[in-house]
């Protein structure tokens, strides 16, 4: 009796101990250095909720989708560019979110929060988090930026340009440079040629923010495609002489949302994490101390100081007049873009 009682209570204790342990983890899939993994933020969240936060990273939206596909159940929260949210939902990689669980949901700017890109069959699949630009960053000590996207093709910067190894992004840039609607380009041959013309310019492909900063610090390139939030981080947190150009031809704008992975072992913790991420608490500290893209939370944006990069650059109506937001792509278009880029890369390597 005593022995069996001991065994039973030991088993029970083990079961109880195992249960919250397994559930107390929030596993996040995101770009490295993109807000969710700031040490102070993780600590604050862990202290407030008792969950531990674990990160895994991707270098492209495609890689993110592949990770979700090949590792079902391995993640709780995943950052998805709104142009890819519906695709992920259709493939069953993410699950619907009950907006009532997100206490900050009401503070999100309606235009971003209710974007059609986050919804499939009326269900909410992504919580609008941040938005920003993919445009051109330059070395303020060596480059006079001008106001055109043609700076990437300027022979003065031959061998000093870096782009990201990403098919969609580069096709979009070439579309902007050739005066096309990037979401529905008609003259693909012009895009092909424009990308090929980049060959003498390109110094390297960068694959992560960390790599961008390291190579920039080592003076490997002077002009490079970069994200607006990352550029402000490079200048603020790393003290690099980085300036940011929004060309007259326009820039790629994106809206990032946080989604709940299908098969999440800890959906409640995941939603708590998303809620914390979209809160003004997190965003204001992120932007003032580290550097961030613009928040989808209007309340959070209003708490930023007047001279904040986000207010200065993204707040300028003239500069942002020509933004084109990334729209979802069909499978066929994606494959076409991928083929254009792969062919171009093969041409660069020759």
């Amino acid at each position, binding site marked *: 009796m005593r022995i069996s009682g001991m065994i039973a209570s030991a088993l029970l204790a083990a079961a109880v101990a195992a249960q919250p342990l397994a559930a107390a983890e929030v596993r996040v899939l995101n770009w490295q250095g993109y807000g969710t993994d700031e040490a102070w933020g993780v600590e604050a969240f862990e202290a407030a909720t008792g969950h531990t936060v674990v990160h895994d990273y991707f270098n*492209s939206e*495609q*890689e993110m*989708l*592949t990770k979700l*596909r*090949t590792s079902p159940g391995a993640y709780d929260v995943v950052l998805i560019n709104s142009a890819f949210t519906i695709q992920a939902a*259709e*493939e*069953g990689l993410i699950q619907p979110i009950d907006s009532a669980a997100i206490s900050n949901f009401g503070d999100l700017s309606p235009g971003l929060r209710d974007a059609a890109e986050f919804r499939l069959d009326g269900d909410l699949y992504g919580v609008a988090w941040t938005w920003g630009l993919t445009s051109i960053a330059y070395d303020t000590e060596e480059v006079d930026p001008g106001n055109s996207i043609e700076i990437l093709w300027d022979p003065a910067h031959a061998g000093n340009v870096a782009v990201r190894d990403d098919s969609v992004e580069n096709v979009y840039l070439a579309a902007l440079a050739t005066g096309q609607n990037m979401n529905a380009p008609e003259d693909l041959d012009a895009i092909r040629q424009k990308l090929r013309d980049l*060959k003498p310019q*390109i*110094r*390297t*492909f960068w694959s992560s923010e960390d790599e961008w900063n390291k190579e920039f610090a*080592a*003076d*490997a390139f002077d002009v490079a495609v970069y994200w607006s939030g990352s550029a402000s981080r490079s200048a603020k947190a790393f003290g690099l002489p980085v300036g940011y150009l929004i060309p007259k031809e326009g820039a790629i704008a994106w809206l990032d949302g946080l989604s709940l992975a299908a098969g999440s072992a800890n959906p409640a913790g995941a939603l708590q994490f998303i809620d914390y991420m979209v809160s003004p608490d997190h965003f204001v500290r992120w932007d003032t101390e580290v550097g961030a893209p613009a928040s989808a939370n209007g309340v959070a944006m209003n708490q930023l100081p007047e001279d904040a990069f986000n207010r200065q650059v993204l707040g300028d109506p003239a500069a942002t007049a020509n933004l084109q937001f990334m729209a979802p792509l069909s499978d066929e278009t994606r494959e076409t873009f*991928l*083929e254009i880029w*792969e*062919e171009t*890369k*093969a*041409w*660069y*390597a*020759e």
Partner: protein
Amino acid sequence: MRIETRRRWAIAWLTGPAYLWLAVTIFLPLSAMLYFSFQKKGPFGKHASEFSLKHYEAFFTKGYLQDLMWRSLEMGFHVTGLCILIGFPAAYWLARRIRGRWREALFLLIVLPFWSNALVRVFSWTIVLRPDGVLDRAVQSVIPGLPAIDLTDSYPAIIIGLVHSYLPYMILTCFLSLQAIDESLLEAARSLGARSWTILVRIILPLAVPGLAAGSILIFVPVIGSFFEPRLLGGPKGTVIGTVIEEQFTVVSNWPLGGALSFILLAIVLLILAVAAPVLKNHMRTT
């Protein structure tokens, strides 16, 4: 008869486990990949399996894929050739001219880097080769005023990294076959008045061919399938067939295309092995 049965059981028990393991981890996966390379799409999402030749066709209709395959082969030739040029003389000196403890010590020194992580060594080359890096600084301190040396993100950087990774193989295999050459054979040649150049070309080189061939294969095959060295060292020059295959699995989830390209690469490897087989057979006999 009973002895024969026992013999058979012994053979089965001794070889069975190893070959069962190889079957599950090498041959079965290759079969699965072969199957998928003939599928229209990978095992994701909701769609029925559908036979398709389009991924093999892609290789033959898309010129850039052929270019990249050729580029990988070219890279294999360059790396193997350089390994022979650098490794053979070193192996020769080590095997024939240095004796005793020194030889033991030097041999170990050459093998040791093999025991360190290949990836990290490639990574450290990026620090050596970058502008204002170690090589640049060293050269500048010897000859000031020279234009900055900057080899990162270039084809030579890939070659340097790969040669560094695979050179020990060549030295090892050449060392083994050179060491096995009977000294009395060379003495006989010398006593007949043969010059050292003649001895090298007519006796030593032919006897070292198995070692050269084994080393070349051990280098050529992994090099044409390499992907992380070109990626980390080559920058925009780092696109090869290996990186394209890798991307099909880790980035764009197009398993069928990745599989088809893999099997085309494999066919080329087999072709090369078939050509080299007679030489290797001799090598098997001598060791």
